[in-house]
Every structure is written in C-alpha cells, then in structure tokens.
C-alpha cells in the first residue's frame, strides 16, 4: 500500500472518529446547572470540533506489509467469499449495513471497493472474478442507501494477496472485497 492509501485511510479514521464522537454527544441529555438552566454538555458541532481537533493531531499507523490488515477505522471493511463465487453471504450483512449507513449519512464520502481472489487460476480470470466481487458489494451497498456515484469497483485479482500460503486457510483469507476510502 502506498503513501496515498495511508493518507486516505488516516483521513477515513479521522472522519470516522469525528462522526462517532458527534453521534455519542448528541445523545447525551443536557446537564442542569445550579441556577436551573440547562447546560448542554456540549453541542454536537462544538464537541465534534474538539474531537476533530484532537483527531487532527493524532496519527493512525497503518500496516501496509500485506499481512492480514486490521483496519484503523471503526468500520468493518472486508467481505469474504467462497471459491469461484461472488455471492455476498449473509455472514457479512453487518459489514454492508454499517458502510451503507456511513455512505448514505454523508453524500460527499467516497469509497472504492477492491475485489481480490486466491491465487488459483489465471491472473485475468481472477481479475474478472475480483471485479465481480467488488461489484456485488457495491450493489449491496446501493440497495441499502449508498449512491452509485459514491462508489467505484476495482479489482486486483490475485495480485495482492493478504496472506501467503497454499492451503485453504490462506486461500480463504484472500478471497475478499475490501472497502477503502477514496
């Protein structure tokens, strides 16, 4: 993963943290002061800005060494697939829901969905299979409220494995679609 990706993931992490912070604070009930008037613990915007400014100075480290990636954002971002399949299984419905919600909540937000495969079969067939996986995830996201214009489906086929290995446990971790901020 290159510098651009690292910066984008950092930006996503920052935006996610800001968003989560403002949601939590909006839900807090106002605190009553001694003289009886309600003092809101903090407006959404204000606290959001505070949370935002502390997130702006923080740097989220991103591991780009190609091993199993743990996302630094709060959003789960990987959907896994069966061999030669691009069906989004019910197990990953939560991943779709959470990301669709984030996208429909902010129309300026863009994501790329990157499709990947295990290393069995040709580079070109796997590139196309990865593309199908990415498009299936994009479709699932749009069905839950994301807009097509916020999303791009691309594929890396078998060229960027998450895990090296020639057994099913490695293959299973490579058959995936990853959601990345753009």
């Amino acid at each position, binding site marked *: 993963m290159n510098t651009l990706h690292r910066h984008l993931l950092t930006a996503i992490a920052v935006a996610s943290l800001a968003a989560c912070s403002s949601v939590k604070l909006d839900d807090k009930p106002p605190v009553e002061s001694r003289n009886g008037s309600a003092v809101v613990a903090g407006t959404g915007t204000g606290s959001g800005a505070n949370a935002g400014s502390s997130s702006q100075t923080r740097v989220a480290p991103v591991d780009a060494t190609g091993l199993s990636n743990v996302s630094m954002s709060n959003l789960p971002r990987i959907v896994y697939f069966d061999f030669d399949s691009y069906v989004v299984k019910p197990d990953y419905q939560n991943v779709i829901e959470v990301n669709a919600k984030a996208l429909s909540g902010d129309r300026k937000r863009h994501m790329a969905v990157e499709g990947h495969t295990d290393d069995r*079969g*040709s*580079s*070109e067939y796997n*590139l196309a299979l*990865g*593309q199908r996986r990415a498009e299936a995830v994009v479709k699932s996201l749009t069905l839950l409220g994301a807009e097509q214009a916020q999303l791009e489906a*691309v594929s890396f086929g078998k060229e*960027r494995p998450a895990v090296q290995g020639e057994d099913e446990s490695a293959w299973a971790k490579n058959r995936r679609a990853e959601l990345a901020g753009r």
Partner: protein
Amino acid sequence: MTLLSLTLSQIRFRRRLACAGLLALLALPAAAQFRVEISGVGATQLPIAVVRFRDEDKSNQSPSAIIRADLERSGAFRIVDAGGGALDETARPPMPEWRAKAADALVAGSVARLADGRFDIRFKLWDVVKGSEIGGQSQAVDAADLRLASHRIADYIYEKLTGEKGVFSTRIAYVTRAGNRYTLRVADADGENGQVALNSGQPIISPAWSPNGKELAYVSFERQKAVVFVHNVATGERRAIADFRGSNSAPAWAPDGERLAVTLSRDGGSQLFSIGKGGDSPRRLASSPAIDTEAQYSVDGRYLYFTSDRGGAPQIYRMAANGGNAERVTFSGGFSISPSVSPDGRTLAYVTRNANAFKLVVLDLATPGAQPVTITETGDDEHPSFAPNGRLLIYATKVQGRSVLMTTTLDGKIKARLPSQTADLREPVWGPYGR
C-alpha cells in the same frame, strides 16, 4: 573448462548426474554461463552432430552449444556426440565415420574475429546419409549479436531438415516478480539475453506482442487499478490505451495490428471490447451476464477464442471476431481457462482444473469429439502461449514453490526449463517471426 556434449546414451548421462528428469549441464567459459535443462525422450527424432565451431572459444559465446540446445529443445532432433575432433565448414568430412556414429546430419563451422572487431561466423550442413552438402552460410556480426547469429543458424538447419520454419531467433516476453518489484522483460526464445522493458512497484500482467513484434500491450497496476498500456519495445515510448472506470485488461492484438480485443468493466462485469491501438473507438463485441475475458484472435483473424463463465463455470468459447453468437469449445472438466490457439487453427492449448490441480492440456479442434490431452506432470500450470510455428508451447508452472517458465512439444515429450535466478517468472508470451 570442458564442454560436455549431450550424448546419444541419455540414460548413462542421467545416472551419472543422478538427476531425475534432467539431462546434461553444458559448461562453458565463465564469460558465457549457459545452462540447459531439457528432459524427456522424443518420438521421431533426427540424429544430428554439431561439431564445436573452430575458434568459438575465442569469442564470448559458444555457437555450437547454442545450436545444439535449440535443436534439442525443438524435440525434432537427437544430439549425437561430435567427439573431440576438429572440423570446420571448409572440411570434407569422412562420411563413413559419421554414419558409424549413427548421425544423419552433420554441422561444422568457424568463428573468426574481423579487423573491425566484429565476428565472421560460418557453417556448413551435410546430409550424412547421402554424403552430400545441404548448404551453409556466413554472417558478419557484432559480438553482441553472436547469440542471434547462432539462433539463425539453428533456424536454417531446422528448416532444411524438417521443412518447417524454426523459432529459435524469435523472442519471448514475460513478467518477473521479486518481493514488491515487478519487471516486464524481453528475452530470446531460449530465455537468455533478458532485458527489462518496464520496472514497476506494482503488478504487471498479460503481455501481448503486436503482430510486427515491435510493441507489447500489457496490463499495469501502477495507477492502483488495471490499465492497458501499449509500449514500443525499442524506444520505451508507451501510452495507456484503456483506462476506463473499473478494470481494463486482457489485451490481444488483431492480426492486422490496428485494433486490440480487451476486457473492460466500464459497463459492469467484465466484457469483451475491441479498441483501436491508440485507445480510440471502443466497441463492445459481446454481451453476457457473465465474465468474458482472455480473448485470443485466431491467426487468420476470423475468430476470437475466450474464457466465459456464462454457462456457470469458466469454459472456452469461440466467436466471430466481429462479435455475435459464441459456441462453446471445451466440454471435458468443469473449469477451463487461458486459451491459446495454434497458428494453423487446429489445436487449442488451455488450462483445466482437475481437483485442486491446474493442468495444461491440448485439444484437437479439427477432430469432432476429441478429448483434451494432459501434457505435463505439474499441478500449477498457467498461461500457455504457442510459438509461431505451432510446434512448441511456452507456459509457467511452479517448481518447488517458485514460478518458472517451460517450453514443451505438443505431445509433452520434450520439455525445457528456461533459466532463472530467484525471481518468480510468469505470464510468458511467444513473439512473432522476424524481430
């Protein structure tokens, strides 16, 4: 250093080397390290002796060794030990002696350094059975072209004795991967003389030679997605010809060299398009709800062979090059990909999945109901590509966890592994005649 010739008694050699499946290593002067790994015993082979060229050790190459390896790799020849005797193109070889060695043909020659630093390389080819000269040639070449001159001699011999064009002076292209570094390379058909055409930190796949051998189309991920480039090999000048939304891949040149078939996902899925070599006028060739990819033109330009999973799992289909109805071509096995069709249109090479093994097979297209024939013992075969004379295939496979390039005769009997160091070698494609 002594020059070990390949002997008629290959069994004796195999025992001596204690190497299962491998034959002799040829040791040359250190300046020209050249290792040939050829295995198998061919069907009908013409026994030929190639004598060491006079004074070849004064140059930086061994033309006789290059010629011997070329002829043996073709599968059409069996190398007869030429012994240590001196012979050149001016000689009158004693034919009874060569008949006694069971050679049907004999080659001898010489290498002479010219005053301007170039080399004059000459040879003669004899028919030992008839006891007559078949022909010979001389070439004056720079030192850098001695290998090419040797390959041209091997082509001459091959054509005179088999009646078919040789492919020894053609080139191949392939991709290397070492860690996160990728290169696209161009090499001689024997895998030697590799030169880097493209250096990248991102994957490169699917190189394809233009029909005139001057350009390579390929897919590069340098823009963080699959984009098709066309690249002039001699000048390095390159242009992206397909960078549409999503993935752009699987370039294949039409035989007229003006347009390419490509796989685009811009309209959703992976579908076949035709596009001008400048990236102009994309035109969709087929519509399917499926993956359509890995298009390959037949040499006469009439058909496209391609991989499609429109039937549920990937199989090979054929369609008129302008588009239209596609007919399925592969029926045995549940998963077939990576078609390469022979120049005469009669044979299809492809990869079929068998349990967890991916096997290179060849299918006789001219015989209805023919079954594909397995021609390798390895289980991880990829990316077959026909030589322009249709007699050899190059492909990639895994040996001890590393990806290597192999050539094979169509019956699978004679295989050669191309030289490699530590990098993975993948995506081989055989270039056209006349570099």
